[in-house]
């Protein structure tokens, strides 16, 4: 997989800190599971967490905390070497997403927004949007801007917008400075995993009319 669009450093830091919303963390983790380069960067960001933990002044813990944990350890079964075959198949569903939808993009029960555009909402306990989008070749997402951040990870097919071309594994990590209109340029439907931390703002009349319907 030749990934050309990566996670923004600020997003990686927040992923490592645990301060991304559930929906944003899911998209970030999916990209990380596909991108060795960002994985190495994430490990370096997590090491900042490690050094901050190391730098904290210790607080009092309960007098019997150690005894309680040691007692719990004694009740643990012997550590057994569990050899779990990685469930890596030819699937284009990244591991973190498989927890939500299972192993295939082809069994999703899509809902249609307009001809050529379908969505499926993920059960993320989150403030913004968390959904899969499927868009037919030649179709475009409605032009929009954001109040906050938006992460879009391509799982299948490709799209182009004002920034460039995005294919499987690429992530568009955008903030409120960007107005864009992604256009699908692959022969097959383009399937993306999308998360925002605030509702989108559509910039056309059609978009504003559609907004109550699409829930974006």
């Amino acid at each position, binding site marked *: 997989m030749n990934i050309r669009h990566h996670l923004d*450093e600020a997003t990686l830091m927040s992923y490592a*800190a645990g301060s991304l919303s559930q929906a944003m963390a899911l998209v970030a983790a999916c990209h990380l599971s596909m991108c060795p380069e960002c994985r190495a960067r994430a490990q370096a960001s997590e090491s900042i*967490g490690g050094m901050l933990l190391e730098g*904290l002044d210790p607080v009092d813990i309960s007098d019997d905390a150690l005894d309680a944990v040691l007692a719990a350890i004694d009740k643990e079964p012997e550590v057994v070497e569990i050899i779990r075959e990685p469930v890596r198949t030819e699937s284009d569903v990244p591991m973190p997403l498989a927890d939500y939808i299972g192993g295939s993009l082809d069994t999703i029960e899509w809902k249609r927004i307009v001809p050529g555009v379908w969505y499926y909402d993920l059960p993320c306990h989150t403030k913004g949007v968390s959904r899969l989008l499927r868009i037919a070749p030649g179709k475009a997402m409605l032009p929009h801007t954001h109040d906050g951040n938006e992460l879009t990870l391509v799982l299948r097919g490709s799209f182009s917008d004002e920034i460039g071309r995005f294919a499987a594994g690429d992530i568009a990590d955008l903030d409120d400075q960007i107005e864009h209109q992604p256009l699908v340029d692959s022969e097959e439907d383009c399937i993306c995993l999308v998360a925002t931390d605030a509702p989108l703002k559509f910039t056309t009349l059609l978009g504003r009319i559609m907004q109550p319907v699409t829930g974006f």
Partner: protein
Amino acid sequence: MENKPPGEDVEKVVALNADTTSQMDWSAILTQLAETQDKKLYITLFRHFAPKVKAYIIRLGLVETTAEELMQETMLTVWRKAHLYNRSKAAASTWIFTLARNQSIDWMRRQKYPEYELEEWTPDPDDSDRGEQSVTADRMARAVQSLPENQAQVIYMSFYEGRSHSEISSRLGIPLGSVKSRLRLASEKLKTIWRAEV
């Protein structure tokens, strides 16, 4: 926690305790624990990390009793998962930080924090050449101290208070873009120091 002015704790955090245990090689101890399952090693790790893990969880805004409970769960997970620890990938403090982070978020959200890797790993033949990933506490402290205050602040608000970019933006009254550029600058500096000193 809501009434705290943002970044109030910055000064307190930077003043680090220079206890002698900061010189110990925790990554080596954790690796040895995984190999031997020696309870004495576990107790040494517990005494050092448990009070820090609890301090971290309290900073995330959880009450003392919950923090105590989640700290004990985290430390139990250290024992359970020690065999998955790989010192060529992370220092012991980093690995324990991610366990504490996940334990706290899972509890707060009642939903599993999305992780990017299978916990199982197979030894990589090149691992031995990748070097030790641990940096001592005082080196780390110096790295954070070297940051300009407005960069240290966004780091603390992200890691210690669990605040998103937009929350930081509204609390500090600065644009979202400024939050992100401060985080990028801080990250760049910390990672440079970290790489140079490993």
